[in-house]
């Protein structure tokens, strides 16, 4: 709470009141205080305070299912455990593979779609809107209904694959198979988020002024050459923005995977957030889970810093 007052008093000192506003009631300084205060208060109460609590807990052996048990300080033990535990590293690799695979596929598909839509064929506006629908849906509900599509006997997905490739539909199970399960979550993620990448890339392509292409035409640059020397470099900041947005979101991925595979089979799809849920709300190792949460948050925050720099670069255009 003391922290909040400090921040607010800093805000309050912000702008010296002008003569006019001193005459007419509330000063600009007062309004700033009044307008930003509640937002900061809520964020401090529901984001920063819990974060500090989590940091404190991460040095203890506290278990939320035994609130009355004595709490012991364990120092950095949880952190050294996390950084040396092969299981945690295996989980991080699962997460990294998921993030890299989904981003690679979504970028290729999304950019290709944006490039095609930018040909401005008739009715492209309508089809763009249709393509955008999956990304607005609830990831949890999407994960849940894909379990139905992935059913080996009755599911539509196996039958479509069978129709295309000729493999019998009941000869494979997407969710239950160790080698296919990682692809099952990648496919759903790509289905959901390619539109997102497409939309950002489309903005990038549309930001390129036409006269650059006209100048290239005058210089008789081939279409291939134009793509590599104009289109791609000029759309690059937007592509980077999409990469970083997707990177952060998929690093945190929880809801869709929790309902689709719940980390299984074994731990083949156990992303960082799923491990965190198990430790915190199934094994009730609250202290250890808090330490893991801090490690995750620091990682994402690092990514986030890069992301804000990229964001500013796009803005300056």
């Amino acid at each position, binding site marked *: 709470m003391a922290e909040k007052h400090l921040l607010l008093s*800093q805000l309050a000192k*912000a702008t010296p009141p002008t003569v006019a506003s001193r005459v007419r*009631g509330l000063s600009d300084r007062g309004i*700033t205080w009044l*307008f*930003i205060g*509640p*937002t900061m208060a809520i*964020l401090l*109460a*529901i*984001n920063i*305070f*819990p*974060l500090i609590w*989590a940091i404190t*807990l991460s040095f203890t052996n506290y278990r*939320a299912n035994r609130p009355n048990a004595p709490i012991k300080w364990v120092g950095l033990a949880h952190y050294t455990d996390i950084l040396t535990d092969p299981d945690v590293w295996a989980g991080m690799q699962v997460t990294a593979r998921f993030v890299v695979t989904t981003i690679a596929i979504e970028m290729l598909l999304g950019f290709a779609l944006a490039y*095609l839509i930018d*040909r401005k*064929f008739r009715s492209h506006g309508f*089809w763009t809107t*249709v*393509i*955008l*629908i999956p*990304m*607005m849906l*609830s990831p949890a*509900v999407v994960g849940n*209904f*894909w379990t*139905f599509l992935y059913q080996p006997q009755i599911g*539509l997905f196996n*039958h*479509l694959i069978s129709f295309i490739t000729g493999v019998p*539909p009941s000869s494979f199970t997407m969710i239950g198979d160790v080698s296919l399960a990682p692809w099952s979550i990648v496919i759903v993620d790509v*289905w959901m988020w390619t539109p997102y990448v497409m*939309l950002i890339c489309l903005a990038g392509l*549309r930001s390129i002024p*036409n006269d650059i292409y*006209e100048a290239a*035409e005058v210089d008789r640059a081939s*279409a291939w050459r134009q*793509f590599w020397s104009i*289109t791609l470099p000029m759309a690059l900041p*937007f592509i980077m*923005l999409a990469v970083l947005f997707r990177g952060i979101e998929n690093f945190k991925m929880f*809801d869709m995977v929790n309902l689709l595979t719940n980390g299984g089979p074994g731990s083949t799809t156990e992303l960082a*957030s799923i491990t*965190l*849920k198990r430790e*915190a709300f199934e094994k009730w190792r609250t202290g250890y889970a*808090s330490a893991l*949460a801090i490690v*995750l*948050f620091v990682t*994402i925050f690092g990514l*986030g810093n890069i992301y804000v720099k990229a964001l500013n670069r796009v*803005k300056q255009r």
Partner: protein
Amino acid sequence: MSATTANSVVAPGAFSRRLAAVLVIFYAIVSMIPLAWILLTGFKTPPDSIAYPPKILFSPSLEGYVNLFTTRTRQTPEFIATLPPATTWYDKLVRSRNMVIAGSSKYLPRYVNSLVIGFGSTFLAVVLGTVAAYAFSRFKVPLKDDLLFFILSTRMMPPIAIAIPIYLMYRELGLIDTRIGMILLYTAVNLSLSVWLLKGFMDEIPREYEEAAMIDGYSRLQAFWKVVLPQASTGIAATAIFCLIFSWNEYAFAVLLTSGDAQTTPPFIPFIIGEGGQDWPAVAAGTTLFLVPIVVFTILLRKLLLRGITFGAVRR
């Protein structure tokens, strides 16, 4: 445009345009198959929904929707024969399966929770976000960039990470499984989006409007209320829809912090079960009713989607 540039990027040729159309429409149709399948499954009978191979042609039934909204008990045909004759079409439908409607299901209360929590948190996030965005847009705020970055960074925390201390905090305060607790939580999460988006919209309103109003004798607050707010109404409406969609879709906090009274729809849908496993037509019906509002909003918002998903960074 001369013939030499007909195939350039400036003016795509007829062939390349047609090819692009074919590919894009193919992708759009393929990506709609899962949603179409869910829509269709909602109108199947339970046996049709698990037929092997999957049935594309079937006689439509409302059994999924009836099962979604009711709980039923299995009875012997002899017992059903002793009952007064079924008066409504859904009673008849259920009795034809040798069941009797025992009551209403939890789907409707969960849907109402989603609405209350969604609208409540959206209202708070938009009101607080509007005034904060105005201050950030117009006044000299010390450490402005740091504060804005801090507000954005609250969105980067993995929900599960923040859920651990929130769970403990809410347990202390008695806010677990309450609507007010979820409204506050979603308000906090939505504030980052709301402040960033609205600051972008506010920045686009020329300062001259308020300055003129203030010269005419308005106070700063009157100018904000009577001049800036009407100008920002489109932005505020769009921001509200984005906040509403987030709260509507949210799952991680909902599944960890609610279990009954305040549970929203996403954690509930996987638990729509019938006799011997998931009742897929009812699940599909519940999913359809849950997704339809979002599809409508997506169509309404299509021009502003880009701005919403990039926190106002890309404005087209």
